């Protein structure tokens, strides 16, 4: 079967059905995922393992670009060149292996061919390790700098690429057949990503070199005063928040509340910029929360007192929440579902945040015992985003490529279910009424009160001894 005639993608046209009742599917999948996580971590990333890509930037770049490839293949290209019939009849494990291999191959081509090859050789030297080494850098740092730059591109793509699908609904190319639609959106988001890269990360890279490369980049960068650092980690903070909010909006929020807007262009534009706005709220809060918990940052310090680290930690903290969001969405049936959409969204937000905080705590307390990393919050060469994104990649492979095997199986949606999915673009279950308005006012007041309660509690939270 080719692309659904209602324009539904493969992911929209299938329904995942539990193979067993109760929590067993989730338990089975998580056991499988954690086993694969640890095996692949040992082979590829672990500093004690086989390939030891966690140098750190080589491994950081790989896990981030792998994430982008998964998103491109499943969301943007709708699995092209594989057709829906093949996806439906092929065993999930075989699909998982083949589609993952395709992503790895595409990632290799992009990194080695485009970034290091074309861009690094003919455009911007810092994308190419050999060029940097030829100019006197050690081989190690030549690779670290180049992979850091390539990794930053991926950070931007991890926000923009899915955003175009989730918020902009593939517009205005939604009616194009694959691969034309995929190529178009990939190229457009890559172009936008390039602009964002130049105005956010290029200056960061330019001041890696002595003297500051003031003829090719804005130095000192324009954000210095606002962010209290010249580091591009300030941008990592809000961009990673955007990445997380895209999936929050797509998953546990079910595209609420922007899907209430009936006018297509307004809905899409509101969703796109709304995601950014929500991400900025999250970003500023997570930064402020650290200042409340650990004391105000001091510019020029290292580690957890430094503004650059705290901006980075905003992105890291957001990723812990994303793990909670995807866990709830993928393995708990987007629990809860029995209430109205706004109530479900509210409860899922609270539950996923609680899961994220628990993962955060357990990561910093125990992860060094198994990942080959160092205990402590702020090791300058350790990025919790690497294991978290590695885990998220496996979540996505399991759910997108393997239809949730072994705990779930994919069955085609019925005609009415497909109709419902197609119509779901605009939600009709929340209407403007005086009661709704009263509820909004009361809820907003309560939300603000909770916010001030949280920030009042942060100094106490900061006293919790997480590292032992």
């Amino acid at each position, binding site marked *: 079967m080719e692309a659904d005639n209602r324009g539904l993608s493969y992911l929209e046209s299938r329904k995942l059905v539990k193979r067993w009742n109760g929590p067993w599917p989730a338990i089975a999948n998580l056991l499988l995922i954690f086993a694969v996580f640890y095996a692949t971590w040992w082979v590829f990333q672990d500093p004690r393992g086989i390939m030891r890509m966690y140098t750190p930037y080589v491994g950081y770049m790989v896990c981030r670009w792998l994430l982008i490839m998964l998103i491109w293949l499943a969301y943007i290209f709708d699995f092209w060149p594989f057709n829906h019939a093949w996806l439906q009849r092929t065993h999930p494990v075989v699909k998982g292996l083949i589609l993952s291999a395709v992503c790895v191959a595409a990632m290799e081509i992009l990194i080695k061919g485009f970034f290091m090859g074309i861009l690094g050789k003919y455009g911007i030297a810092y994308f190419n390790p050999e060029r940097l080494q030829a100019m006197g850098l050690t081989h190690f740092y030549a690779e670290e700098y180049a992979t850091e730059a390539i990794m930053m591109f991926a950070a931007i793509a991890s926000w923009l690429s899915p955003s175009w699908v989730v918020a902009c609904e593939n517009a205005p190319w939604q009616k194009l057949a694959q691969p034309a639609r995929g190529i178009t959106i990939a190229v457009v988001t890559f172009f936008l990503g390039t602009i964002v890269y130049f105005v956010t990360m290029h200056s960061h890279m330019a001041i890696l070199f002595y003297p500051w490369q003031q003829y090719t980049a804005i130095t000192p960068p324009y954000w210095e005063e606002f962010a209290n650092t010249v580091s591009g980690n300030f941008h990592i903070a809000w961009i990673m928040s955007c990445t997380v909010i895209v999936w929050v909006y797509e998953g546990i929020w079910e595209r609420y509340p922007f899907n209430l807007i009936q006018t297509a262009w307004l809905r899409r534009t509101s969703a796109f910029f709304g995601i950014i706005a929500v991400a900025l709220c999250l970003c500023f809060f997570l930064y402020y929360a650290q200042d409340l918990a650990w004391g105000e940052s001091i510019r*020029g310090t290292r580690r957890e007192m430094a503004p650059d680290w705290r901006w980075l930690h905003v992105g890291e903290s957001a990723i812990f929440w994303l793990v909670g969001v995807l866990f709830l969405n993928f393995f708990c049936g987007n629990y809860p579902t029995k209430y109205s959409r706004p109530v479900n969204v509210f409860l899922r937000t609270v539950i996923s945040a609680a899961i994220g905080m628990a993962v955060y705590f357990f990561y910093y307390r125990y992860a060094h015992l198994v990942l080959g990393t160092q205990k*402590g919050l702020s090791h300058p060469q350790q990025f919790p985003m690497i294991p978290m994104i590695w885990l998220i990649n496996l979540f996505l492979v399991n759910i997108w490529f393997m239809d949730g095997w072994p705990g779930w199986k994919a069955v085609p949606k019925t005609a009415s279910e497909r109709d419902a999915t197609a119509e779901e673009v605009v939600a009709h279950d929340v209407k403007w009424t005086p009661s709704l308005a009263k509820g909004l006012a009361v809820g907003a007041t309560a939300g603000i009160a909770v916010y001030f309660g949280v920030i009042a509690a942060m100094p106490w939270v900061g006293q919790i001894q997480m590292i032992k």
Partner: protein
Amino acid sequence: MDDKITASRRDFVKGAATGAVGGLLGGMGLYSYTKNAYDRLPKVAREQQEFGAVRSVKVTAISETSWFNNAHLMEDIQKSGGLLVDQYTIGWGPFGNGKGPGKSSYAEGIAPIKAMLPNDLEAAWEIQTKKALHPENPGGFSSLLEVEDLDGSKHKYLLDVGWSYAWMDQAFKREGIDEMLKTGEIEQLILTHEHFDHFFGLPVAMKANPKVPTIIHNGFYKEGLQYIKDSGYQGELKIADKEMTLIRPGMMLIKFDVPIICRVYGETSLAFNVKDKGLVLISGCNHQGILQMTSTAYKKLKYDNDRFHGLYGGLHISPFEDWDPKYDDLVISLGKWDFEKVGCNHCTGHLTAKKFVERGYPVVRGTARFRSSSPDYLGNGDTITF
């Protein structure tokens, strides 16, 4: 009527749920990163612990050249798997096992040389020249501290013991450290942290005085603790487990619990209150960050004139001549602390020293002797007095 009320309640709940998320996000976005929000942060209370004073502190850089070829060091690290790899497995002397980068272990490395420590170090290092990666590359970091009390009496301390047995033996002889250890003139050995270039040369000091009182950070791994025993140490090992440990009046050891590259945890540094001048900070590598140290000292200690007078040591900014924009934050911000004398070397990095000088910081230049590569900063055999 009931249906209407029920619908109205449902709408209210829907609105309340939406409003709650919206209100929470609104607070986060509109308040968090504002001046008002920061005005509510409590002012930092200075504890200003009295810890006495000294008349002067003289530092001799016995060796600041931890390695002689940066490319070789980084090649070893890269081939082993990067900056998170356990230092005992990389294959550096004295723990090389001849199996190549990243394939060594403490047990395999120490086995053939254990019996030779600490008295037959030439033979031990000779074995390592056949098994270790780039055996000609190690040097080491070590400094002699001469503290003059207010009554004029002088006290000597050895800060770290370097790396290569051969190099450190030569360096100790050059500065007379071996004799000072033998005679007990050196009152205490302070091992700032477990890193190879500060710690692996321990048997050289043990050869001269295996009972010298020694203090270490409580973050040493089991291999490090075993190496202290295997090096022939017979004295009483003191483990710093509090943030502040008074070494003598006017000399405070400050402990920082920070994760460090090559699987090391924690570092200690020293603060001196020099009478009528102010605070002097001395570090081995300063992995915690120099401004982290200044801000800790500012909050916790009381010192003359309430000012920072001097700074010495590896400042761990660009140890591998690498760079990161956050280092510029440090270079830009250091000026606010207004140090009168900056004696830096070792893992500070030449590029950092150059940037310090460009900003007008009072960096004390060196003489580039005994294989120190540049007069940009204090080198081997150079001294600085605070």
